């Protein structure tokens, strides 16, 4: 087993264990922290797959932005109940279904092995060049997506409960 494999094993285990934490802990804040750990280990996987830039993006955006947004929201709502959220009544069925999903995919993955080539990643320059030439249309769409999220968040979250006329529907 080479060093790369050992490293992968470690980050994979961390990612999975923290992932289990995300979906099983009863405390929302803990779940957010588990998610942060899991995301960080995914960044580790990216590094092992020669995608350093993506690893950086992963840490900055997910670790930085997403988790912070989640925690902010938790603080805004100040819900005492958030420290003890039970799973819903169908969790056992959910577990079976999720196992089914994993089983289906695992079977496929192990059954049809793909012929791989040498592990290699593009340079940052290549990625940037590609993004702004061939993928410029999706890039623009993505910027619109962000804008919509921004505007939507402002409309929906900012309005306070008293300054509006009667309800609609």
């Amino acid at each position, binding site marked *: 087993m080479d060093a790369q494999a050992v490293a992968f094993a470690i980050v994979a285990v961390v990612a999975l264990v923290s992932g289990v934490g995300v979906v099983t802990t009863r405390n929302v804040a803990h779940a957010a922290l588990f998610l942060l750990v899991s995301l960080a280990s995914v960044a580790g996987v990216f590094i092992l797959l020669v995608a350093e830039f993506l690893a950086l993006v992963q840490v900055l955006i997910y670790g930085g932005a997403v988790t912070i947004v989640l925690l902010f929201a938790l603080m805004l709502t100040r819900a005492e109940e958030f420290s003890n959220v039970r799973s819903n009544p169908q969790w056992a069925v959910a577990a079976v279904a999720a196992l089914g999903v994993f089983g289906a995919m695992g079977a496929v993955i192990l059954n049809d092995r793909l012929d791989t080539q040498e592990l290699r990643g593009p340079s940052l320059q290549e990625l940037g060049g590609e993004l702004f030439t061939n993928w410029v249309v999706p890039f623009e769409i993505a910027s619109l997506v962000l804008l919509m999220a921004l505007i939507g968040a402002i409309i929906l979250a900012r309005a306070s409960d008293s300054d*509006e006329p009667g309800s609609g529907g």
Partner: protein
Amino acid sequence: MTPDVRFELLWPEFLVAGLAFLVFTLDFFVRPARKEVLAWVSAAGLAVIIAFTVPFLLNEHDSLFDGLYRVDSYALFFKVLSMGIGIAVILGSLHFVDRRLTHPGEYYAIIIVSVLAMMMMAASGELLTAYLSLELLSFCLYILSGFALQDRRSNEASVKYVLLGAFSSGLLLYGIVLLYGALGTTHFAGMAAALEGTGGVDGRLLVGLALVVAGLGFKLAAVPFHMWAPDVYQGAPMPITAYIAVGSKAAAFALALRLFYEALAPAYDEWQLLIAGMAALTMIFGNVVAIVQTNVKRMLAYSSVGQVGFLLMGIAALSPLASNALMVHLVGYSVTNFAVFFAITAFYNATGKDDIPDFAGLAGRAPFLAAAITVGLFSLAGLPFLAGFVTKFYLFSAAAAEGLLWLAGVAMVASLISLYYYLQLIRQMYIERAPEDEGGSVTVATPGVLAAVIGAMALGTVLLGVYPEPVLATIREATAALLDTGSAWPTLGSAGQ
């Protein structure tokens, strides 16, 4: 920089985006009492863009960025349809917004952005672009469905929509990535070539396909991925319900049609039965559950789930005829549904009620609305001389021509069932008497603009039923474009129509 990309072909998209920003900006300068100016600007802007786009792109046929983005008559058809839908929704919601919503500027601008998203969904020739356009559309709809800020139901609708939407986009993305892994590309043309090359079909591809079907099925509201639809339809503000039912569905089908026809046609044998089964399940389920509904919006939600089943026939049959049929059914379905939904909106605007018994005696209180609803419902049920008959005739023939006779049979049964619950509403309007109390005998007034939109849609329903040929001619062009860029047609029997 790729030098040979003709960026000027993207003018319509830029113009629509520009219009959205214009409305966002104008919103700051328009006094609150005069916000309806924004609606007129939006609608007129879209109309001008249609007038510009049609001659501008009429004979263009290009595929930008190696087929990532298509400019062809198929895309043009859906561009015009999307903008038309946008205009109808904007004008149809004028009074609703006036009376029941805040933030009108954002409301109209977001609709324009979603129109842009629909246009791009039909033009995408690549999975990731398609996904991003779809997500843009979804974001707009998440916001719009929660736009009635103080209404618990509107909020509940948007919570359900956004969480399930995020979940479904997770499924869809995983599917896209699996397809990418199995085929090595996300471009439709490349996928088709790879599929033809491999001969056998490996498991990764099938699981990916199943996930893509699940993700798209969510957008289309096909059983069993439809469950969000009734709740969101019921909770969302009324014109937005119409918009989700019509616009989002049309765009999702535009995308699905291109995906299945251009990229996945070589694997036809693998997915035909799946889609056909889903179609049968969807039309039966939607129409059966619609029977027991008491809320009009909910009944129409299930009815439109049922309609999705009919539309899916057009994909399952995979032939030029089926593609024509799907598109013409989409047009007929859009026009018809708008007629019904806006008539119900007008009723709701005036009374604030939307349960089926509330419509008792409407024929006496608002004969115009009652007639429009009746025409629309009869068309949805597929009665002759109305759009629904023509389009269903087309769809059923297409399915039968491709050997899916059983599916056509199921569809006929489903149509019969639908007539039953449509008649319940019609019976309320024409046979039952209006309740004496609570002003039940007061005439329901419909503002001029809304009446014009309803009238135009009802007229369109009749025209399409009587003389569909002009629309069909356009649609044949669109299908030709689809086939032109498409790949091999493995099991096709019939020639292009």
